[in-house]
C-alpha cells in the first residue's frame, strides 16, 4: 500500500531524511520509531503530499504522491502532529466539512460522520466548539477526521503525544480496533506504545532506517529485553559469588555487577519471561544480604536505539555503546 524508494529531503543545511526506502503492505500496522528530529514527521508529510521530496519516490496505493497527488491524498487519512483544527467550528460541523472535502457523497455523509463520531467517542461533544475541547478530545477529533471517509491508509503522526495515561490507553485501544480495517503507519517515540499496537517497527535515526522488524526480532537483534531490566542493590561480602548465585535463579536470563560503593553493590539483571523479583528477595534472605533496592524498569527507546545503532548488542549489557562490536555488526 505504501512504497518508498530512496527518499531524501533537506531543509537548508539540515538533512532531514536520507535515502529512505521501505514499504508497508495491506493490513499491516507499522510503527515509525525514532527520537525527535529523526525524520518521522518529514517522511509522513511527504507521503501525504504536503511536502515534496528532493529525491526518490513514494507511492500510495500505486499512485505517486507528487505527480498523482490528488489520487494519492484521497486514499489517506492523516493525523498531523499537534492536530491543527479550526477553533471556531463545532465538532460535528468540522467532521461534516472534512468529509465533504474528501469527497464523501452527500447521501452517505451524515452516516459516515455519525460513525466517526461514535468510533472516537465524540458523540456527546458533537455540538461543542473545537476551541473549547481538551487536548485528548482534540486528538480524537483529529483521528475522527482521518478516518471519516474510510480511507485505505491511515498515517498517524504521534497519535498519543501530550495525552494523559488514561487517554493514551484509550487512543491505543482505538488504534488497535482500527487495525482490522485500515493499513496504518504511525509514529512514536515511545517504545512500549509501538510494541503494543504495531506488527512491525521501523527505527529511524538521523534520517535513515537503522533497523526494521517485529518487536520480538528487534529485541533479539538488540540483545535487549523489551520487558526491561531489574536493579538490585545490596550489601554483601563477595560480589562475584553473589553474581553466580543470582544467575542460577529461575527467571534470570543474565546478570552483571555494575559496581560498588561504600560496601553497596549494584547488579543489573535481565529477566526472562518469568518475573524473578520474589526469587531474588528469597536469595537475599537466604544469603543474609542487606537489601536496599530491588526495582524493575522498562528499557527505553534510547537503549534499544543505541544498541541498534551500535550494531546489535551482547547479552544483557548491550546498553552501552561499543564501537568494536559495531564494526563486527556492520560486516555482511
Amino acid at each position, binding site marked *: 500500500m505504501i512504497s518508498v524508494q530512496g527518499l531524501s529531503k533537506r531543509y537548508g543545511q539540515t538533512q532531514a531524511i536520507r535515502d529512505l526506502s521501505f514499504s508497508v503492505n495491506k493490513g499491516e500496522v507499522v510503527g515509525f520509531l525514532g527520537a525527535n528530529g529523526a525524520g518521522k514527521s518529514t517522511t509522513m508529510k511527504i507521503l501525504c503530499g*504536503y511536502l*515534496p521530496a528532493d529525491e526518490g519516490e513514494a507511492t500510495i496505493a500505486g499512485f505517486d504522491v507528487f505527480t498523482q497527488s490528488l489520487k494519492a491524498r484521497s486514499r489517506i487519512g492523516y493525523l498531523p502532529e499537534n492536530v491543527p483544527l479550526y477553533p*471556531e*467550528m463545532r465538532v460535528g460541523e468540522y467532521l461534516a466539512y472534512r468529509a465533504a472535502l474528501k469527497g464523501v457523497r452527500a447521501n452517505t455523509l451524515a452516516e459516515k460522520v455519525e460513525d466517526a463520531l461514535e468510533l472516537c467517542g465524540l458523540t456527546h461533544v458533537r455540538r461543542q466548539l473545537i476551541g473549547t475541547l481538551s487536548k485528548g478530545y482534540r486528538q480524537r477529533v483529529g483521528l475522527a477526521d482521518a478516518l471519516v471517509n474510510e480511507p485505505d491508509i491511515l498515517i498517524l503522526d504521534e497519535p498519543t503525544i501530550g495525552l494523559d495515561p488514561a487517554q493514551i490507553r484509550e487512543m491505543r485501544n482505538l488504534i488497535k480496533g482500527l487495525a482490522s480495517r485500515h493499513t496504518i503507519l504511525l509514529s512514536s517515540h515511545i517504545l512500549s506504545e509501538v510494541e503494543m499496537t504495531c506488527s512491525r517497527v521501523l527505527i529511524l535515526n538521523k534520517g535513515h532506517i537503522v533497523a526494521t522488524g517485529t518487536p520480538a526480532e528487534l529485541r533479539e537483534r538488540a540483545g535487549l529485553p523489551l520487558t526491561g531490566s531489574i536493579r538490585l542493590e545490596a550489601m554483601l561480602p563477595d560480589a562475584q559469588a553473589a553474581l553466580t548465585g543470582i544467575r542460577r535463579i529461575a527467571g534470570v536470563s543474565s546478570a552483571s555487577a555494575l559496581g560498588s560503593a561504600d560496601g553497596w553493590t549494584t547488579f543489573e539483571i535481565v529477566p526472562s519471561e518469568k518475573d524473578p523479583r520474589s526469587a531474588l528477595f528469597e536469595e537475599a534472605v537466604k544469603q543474609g544480604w542487606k537489601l536496599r533496592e530491588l526495582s524493575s524498569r522498562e528499557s527505553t527507546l534510547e537503549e534499544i536505539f543505541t544498541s541498534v545503532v551500535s550494531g546489535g548488542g551482547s547479552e544483557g549489557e548491550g546498553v552501552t555503546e561499543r564501537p568494536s562490536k559495531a564494526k563486527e555488526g556492520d560486516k555482511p
Partner: protein
Amino acid sequence: MRIFWILWKREVASAFQTPMAWVILFFLMLITGFNFYAGVTVLNHGPTEVTVVESFFNTIFFWIPFLLLFPLLTMRTYSEEYRSGTVEPLMTAPVRDTQVVLAKFFGTLFLYVVLWLPTAIYFVIFWLQTRLTAAGATGAYLGAYFLLLLMGMFYLSLGCLCSSLTRHQVTAAVMSFAIVSLFFLTGLLTFLAGNVGSFMRGLTVTLSPIEQMTQFSRGIIDTRAVVWYLVMTALSLFLTLHSFQARRWRK
C-alpha cells in the same frame, strides 16, 4: 467546483462565526451612517453641485473606512492557516491549490459585498422621507456600487496576496494597507511629480479611484477602469497562487 463551494462556505461561515465580521459591520454602518447624514446636511444648507450619491461615495468619511476594510478582511485568510497549522490538514485533503486560492478570494469578496449592501438602506430611507431620488438617475447607484465591487476585487486580491506571504496577520495587514494605499493614491502622483508628460497625467487620472468614483457615481461607466481592475485582480490572484504553492519549498 463542488470542492470550491465547500471551501467557500467554510471561509464565509468562519468569518461570521467569529465576532470579526460583526464588529466590522457595526463600525462600517456607524461611519457610513454619519457620512450619509453629513451629505444630507449639506443639501439642507442650500443648492449644491453634487447629488447625495455623489457626495456619499466620495468623501474622506467614505474612503478611510473603505481603505481600512481590506487589511481587516484579508489578513487572516492565509496567515491564520499557516500560524495555526491548519494548512496541513487542508492541503493533505484531495484539494487543488487553485480551489483554495479562489475559495478564499471569493469568500472575502462575498463578505465585502455583504458589508456594503446595508448602505443601500440609506438611499431607500432618503426616498421614503423626501420622495426625491438621491441620485440623478438609477445608473448612478449602479455605477457607484459597481465601482465599489471592482475596486473591492482588486484590493481584496492584493490583501490575499499579502496574507499568503506571511504567517503573521499583523505583517499581512500592514503590507496590504501599504500596497492598497499606494494604488489608491496613484491619482496624487501628478501633484508630486509636477513636470510629467500628458500621457502620465492622463494615466494617473484614469487610475485614480477618486476620479473614477466621480464618473461612476454619475452613472458613467469608464471601461478602462473596468478592464484595469479585472486584469489586476486576475494578476494578483495568479501571484497569490504561486506564493501559496511556494510554501512547499521553503522552511
